[in-house]
């Protein structure tokens, strides 16, 4: 199978470091005004089955800086809106001789299907409520621009963890790089059985962000209130808002992050969003460099010792032992 970036969960720490280092070197090169001229420029399909201007623009920028070409494919106005299945779309794009696809989809796990069908490389640009690996890599690059190491940091992720792919990817990434991850939110917005997700669960903000070096806010969708998962934005603000007051519980100068788009005044106040601790705009910029790294990394020859871990989701340890009848071969 071709090398793809589907999750942070299946990467090892070395691979994550490799990509962050690569991103940092791309940042340096671009700051110096260098132009990258790859010997073998790739053609990347940007498949946004769910609309996202920010991530798409970031990937477009990354592709251009790398000297690659991209072509856009969005589900509205395409064959998808005429009832074509994801499978047929992917098979068609394969025959269009794209080298790789970047895929955003509303269904968790959809890039796994694309990876099986597409005879090329796939980068997950966010799948449902599962993972958003390039967001987490960008966040890690941002943290490492200010702090020497992630090892030993206290990282607090605050808000709607249950529905957040950003939370999952970041929890895995910071956990794998040795941080103490805390997941903070109301019971209704937290997985009822967090067991397999890394991180300790808190339902109150204060103990959760105590001594935090990094405080990440998650976006609170309005539909959560309609579904009765949160009583009101007012209540959320009172219980979980990251602001000038509540940031006092964290380490002085703790980095404040948000994947955007912000609900200013809900997840964070103006101080947190615009103040000296805010990393929000740097996150956006670093997003470009890690996406360059991801696009470069999928086409690079895997180093022998890492190859197995980095490219293929490993056979899950649990699926082997549980059943006598066994799982699919």
């Amino acid at each position, binding site marked *: 199978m071709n090398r793809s970036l589907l999750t942070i969960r299946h990467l090892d720490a070395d691979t994550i470091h490799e990509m962050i280092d690569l991103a940092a070197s791309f940042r340096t090169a671009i700051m110096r005004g260098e132009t990258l001229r790859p010997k073998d420029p790739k053609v990347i399909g940007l498949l946004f089955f769910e609309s996202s201007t920010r991530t798409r623009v970031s990937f477009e920028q990354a592709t251009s800086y790398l000297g690659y070409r991209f072509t856009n494919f969005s589900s509205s106005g395409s064959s998808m809106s005429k009832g074509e299945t994801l499978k047929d779309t992917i098979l068609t794009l394969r025959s269009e001789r794209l080298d790789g696809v970047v895929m955003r989809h509303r*269904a*968790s*796990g959809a890039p796994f*299907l694309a990876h099986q069908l597409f005879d090329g490389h796939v980068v997950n640009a966010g799948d449902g409520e*599962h993972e958003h690996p390039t967001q987490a890599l960008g966040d890690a690059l941002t943290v490492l621009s200010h702090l020497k190491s992630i090892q030993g940091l206290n990282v607090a992720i605050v808000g709607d963890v249950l529905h957040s792919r950003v939370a999952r990817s970041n929890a895995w990434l910071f956990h794998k790089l040795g941080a103490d991850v805390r997941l903070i939110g109301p019971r209704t917005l937290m997985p009822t059985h967090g067991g397999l997700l890394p991180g300790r669960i808190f339902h109150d903000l204060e103990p959760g962000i105590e001594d935090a070096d990094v405080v990440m806010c998650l976006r609170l969708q309005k539909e959560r209130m309609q579904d009765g998962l949160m009583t009101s934005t007012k209540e959320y603000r009172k219980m979980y808002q990251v602001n000038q007051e509540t940031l006092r519980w964290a380490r002085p100068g703790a980095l404040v992050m948000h994947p955007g788009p912000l609900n200013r005044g809900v997840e964070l106040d103006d101080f947190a969003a615009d103040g000296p601790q805010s990393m929000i705009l740097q996150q956006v910029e670093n997003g470009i460099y890690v996406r360059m790294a991801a696009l470069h990394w999928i086409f690079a020859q895997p180093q022998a010792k890492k190859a197995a871990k980095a490219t293929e989701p490993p056979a899950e340890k649990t699926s082997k032992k549980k*059943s006598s009848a066994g799982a*699919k071969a």
Partner: protein
Amino acid sequence: MKTILKNGRILDPSTNMDVVGHVIIEDEAIAEIGSDVEIEEDADQIIDCQGLWICPGLVDLHAHLREPGEDHKETIVSGTQAAAAGGFTTVCCMPNTTPPLDSPSLIDFLFDRAASPEAGGVFVAPVGALTKRGEPDRLTDLAALKRAGIVAASDEGAPIQSARTMIRAMEFCRQLDLPIMAHCEDEDLSLGGCMNEGSVSALLGLKGIPRSAEEIMVARNCLLSLQTGCRLHIMRVSTWHSVEIIRQAKYLGADVTCETNPQYFTLNEEMMQNFDPHFKTTPPLRSQIDIDILLQALADGTIDAIASDHSPHANYEVQVPFEEAPYGMATLETSLATALTALVHKGVLAPLELIRKLSTNPAQLLGLDAGTLQPFETPVAQITVIDPDLEWTFDVSKTFSKGKNTPYHGTQFKGKAMMAICGSEIYRDAKFDLKRLQVPAPA
């Protein structure tokens, strides 16, 4: 026509018989069984069954044959062929077809199709719809359906949400002496979910279905059965709380039986970690603790029956993102092998008890002429011959079912149906050793 099954291990749960002996079939019916039966060499066919089990034909309580309306997934012809290959001689087909089995003419159509020469030769026992499609609170004409030949009524595919509607359904069915086969799902709680709510759904970002979505309806239906006296069969028990609720209902005297399906005691939620839609079922695959309790409940008799819940789909319907995939797996041709491998060879169930759950109990709880080897008890001999020790690898490309959606492809099994007899031989496995056949020269 006279056929002799010679020297097999006869397993007949209807009389607790477990002996090595012979079975004589004469003119489509079982004429004699036992160890001291005299074998006259005047038979038309003698089959040496040494090392094989001779059992009453297996009865599948719960399969989806998809006709009418969804013959791209399965037809009566392909589904009955798959049933015979899986060792079943009777298959109960579920009513959630298009249109649903809600009128006598559709029941006639089913019987016609099942009797066609291309079909698998097994008996098809239709289960009628309890409510009309799109009208969740309007009952079908149950008396007319019963006259047409349904063996039970079910809310499969359209679980009855209103307790008041369910009470009325039970009152009618009690009067008609028709069991209700209940699909227990609170759709308010399961809304939008696609796998068990638990640590794996948290990991994958898939919306979970809480266990309570099943358990609340199991409890409700048991209580309503107690109140009305209606015979209730709970389909697809998957959680350990459901087991405990049913145990309690039986203790209270409810006329309730239940089944589970091989997928629920062999597969679990942790197998979905790469988003393979072949593992998507309703209710969803649960966790190891549920499997442990299901195995106990199979052993202690709380779970009465094992059914396939054969749910075939076309490949293109399954090759989609997990949450968009349909529920269910095609299991007619693996259920017996899965149960043999996971239950008998692991010491959970004795052979006789497995056959009880796959044949005698299902036949008795629906009042079918099946599930026994006693001479002349059933008008037509239904017999399954099983090689309990044959080791084989399941290859989905070789199945009879149109549905190739199975998580068991490539699985090693121990045990397989070698022959199915429904009056006469309807299925003989490719691995059947032809040396076992003796055809005496005509006198």
